[in-house]
């Protein structure tokens, strides 16, 4: 880049060309580029689409013909979904679905509230050891869960909590805390100090500053962490498998699906419907809160 000057001197030119990037873009958007984009999009969508179509086909049809024959011989049924949810003579995914809900809700609320308190202390209160503690918590983000599982399981068994939801709630809360504190702290630091000073001058204490001044401003950050944690907990297999056991009464839907895939790997009428029962909730949440998810992704992973 030798010449940057022409641009800065000619604002008129920039005004004439609606968007410089768009012009540069045009050169790139040859038919080949469009084709490449379409190929990638199709490759990324087709596998899911195939299983989705299959989940609505009769069991016999799934097992004897490919899903693409659906378009020449369309037969639609909801039997697969009925069977997979039924606990009497099906896979009983319904109760595992309930477990997933029961696991996920507290596992999002608990770390989020605790992280609010901690992030507030780190961002707005001066106390000895602040920087060292914050750095330590930041560093804990990199600890792989695997390192903690066996000793944690022993602790839960000793405490008499084995095979209850408590083990999963507590574990997910602990594992979510470092990221939550980091995200919320970054966000709180950006709130102008004058805003808090003004409240303090008015006689507000820490508690009312937090609830009246900060909480309304924190909503996007809370949404970002909330959706991260929700997806992570709902989709988790490792933690649930370790603490809830394989067929336990408290296992979430991911565990049930993984078991189904292991024991009845060719029961595609159950696997296809089961997969979509488990996908439905996270995808809905994801699409609704996409904006916050992307913002959190950018704040959490790409700083500066």
């Amino acid at each position, binding site marked *: 880049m030798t010449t940057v000057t022409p641009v800065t001197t000619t604002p008129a030119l*920039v005004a004439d060309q609606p968007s410089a990037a768009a012009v540069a873009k045009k050169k790139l958007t040859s038919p080949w580029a469009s084709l490449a984009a379409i190929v990638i999009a199709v490759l990324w969508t087709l596998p899911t689409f195939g299983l989705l179509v299959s989940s609505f086909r009769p069991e016999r049809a799934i097992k004897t013909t490919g899903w693409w024959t659906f378009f020449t011989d369309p037969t639609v049924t909801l039997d697969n979904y009925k069977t997979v949810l039924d606990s009497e003579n099906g896979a009983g995914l319904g109760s595992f679905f309930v477990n997933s809900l029961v696991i996920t809700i*507290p596992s999002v*609320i608990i770390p989020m509230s605790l992280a609010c308190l901690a992030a507030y202390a780190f961002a707005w209160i001066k106390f000895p050891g602040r920087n060292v503690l914050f750095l330590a918590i930041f560093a804990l983000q990199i*600890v792989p869960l695997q390192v903690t599982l066996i000793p944690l399981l022993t602790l839960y068994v000793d405490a008499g909590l084995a095979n209850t939801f408590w083990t999963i709630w507590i574990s997910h809360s602990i594992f979510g*805390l470092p990221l939550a504190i980091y995200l919320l702290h970054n966000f709180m630091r950006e709130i102008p100090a004058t805003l808090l000073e003004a409240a303090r001058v008015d006689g507000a204490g820490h508690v009312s500053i937090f609830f009246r001044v900060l909480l309304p401003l924190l909503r996007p950050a809370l949404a970002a962490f909330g959706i991260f944690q929700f997806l992570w907990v709902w989709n988790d297999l490792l933690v649930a498998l370790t603490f809830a056991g394989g067929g336990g009464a408290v296992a979430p839907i991911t565990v049930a699906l993984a078991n189904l895939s292991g024991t009845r790997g060719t029961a595609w009428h159950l696997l296809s419907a089961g997969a979509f029962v488990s996908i439905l909730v996270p995808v809905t949440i994801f699409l609704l809160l996409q904006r916050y998810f992307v913002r959190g992704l950018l704040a959490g992973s*790409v700083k500066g």
Partner: protein
Amino acid sequence: MFDTAETTAEKFTQMFAAILLFAAVVGIILFIAGRFGGRRGDKIVAYSYLAPTLIMLLVGLVYPGMRTIYQSFFDAAGSAFIGLDNYKTIFTDTDQLTVLRNTVFWVVVTPFVATAVGLLYAILVDKAKMESFAKALIFLPMAISFVGASIIWKFVYEFRPDQGNVKQIGLLNQVLVWLGGSPQQWLVDSPLNTFLLIVVMIWIQAGFAMTVLSAAIKAIPDDIIEAARLDGVTPWGMFRFVTLPAIRPAVVVVLTTIGIGTLKVFDIVRTMTGGQFNTSVIANEFYSQSFRSDNQGLGSALAVLLFVLVIPIVAYNIRQIRSSEAL
């Protein structure tokens, strides 16, 4: 309240009880904090806000981490000290060497391919018609669990014996048949099967790469692009000398983040092959050794190895962020 809940009603009751109990704890902390004001009270407020977090992290992360490191020097039952034998097993045993080899495949291939696809797609759809719809197609897999994704792809790889009237129901084999080939048992042949499992991870992670890189591309100042355009730079030159240097920090972060995620993923291997047919990776082997083979020593050593492998990637990541901020 601390028993195993059986019915749906019991489960939800227990859930609300847990949330209430927890809300009470937070309420007590806020009440205590509210009683103290002024500069001297600040210290008490700070520590009481941090107390639950610190206790949970100490008991749930720091202690178990230390304990696992300690445990990795003991035998399968965790009773006899055996020094570095578990680590020796990891680096000499034939099965374990296959695990290491597969892990290398995963960690090298996934970040680069996922980032390349994500970057290419981000550039292709940038400012195109229906850009947000096009992007949603690629990043939707991020919302799907690894288990769900594994089932989706297992169906793509599904194999039916090549005889008589048997028709293929897996897309990949059907495409092969249409092209005149004979169907394969994709998940059985090593090391090809490992790469087919890696495809699933790439499928999930490309959306992450695309989202972050697309934001980085949009953040490039228009005047730089305009200047390059006036210089008559070719599209390739534009990418090579303008776009790529500008988004380099974001590319590094994406590569390292996907690398770390890949190192830790075990759901895909477990759901698709269960680690059979030479497809196991460290994270899966950790689970099998710890909870299936009851070899706590070796399991702990594998977990520690995972931890050790993450550190250089994170260190590199932080150095990159530092140096890009210094510029």
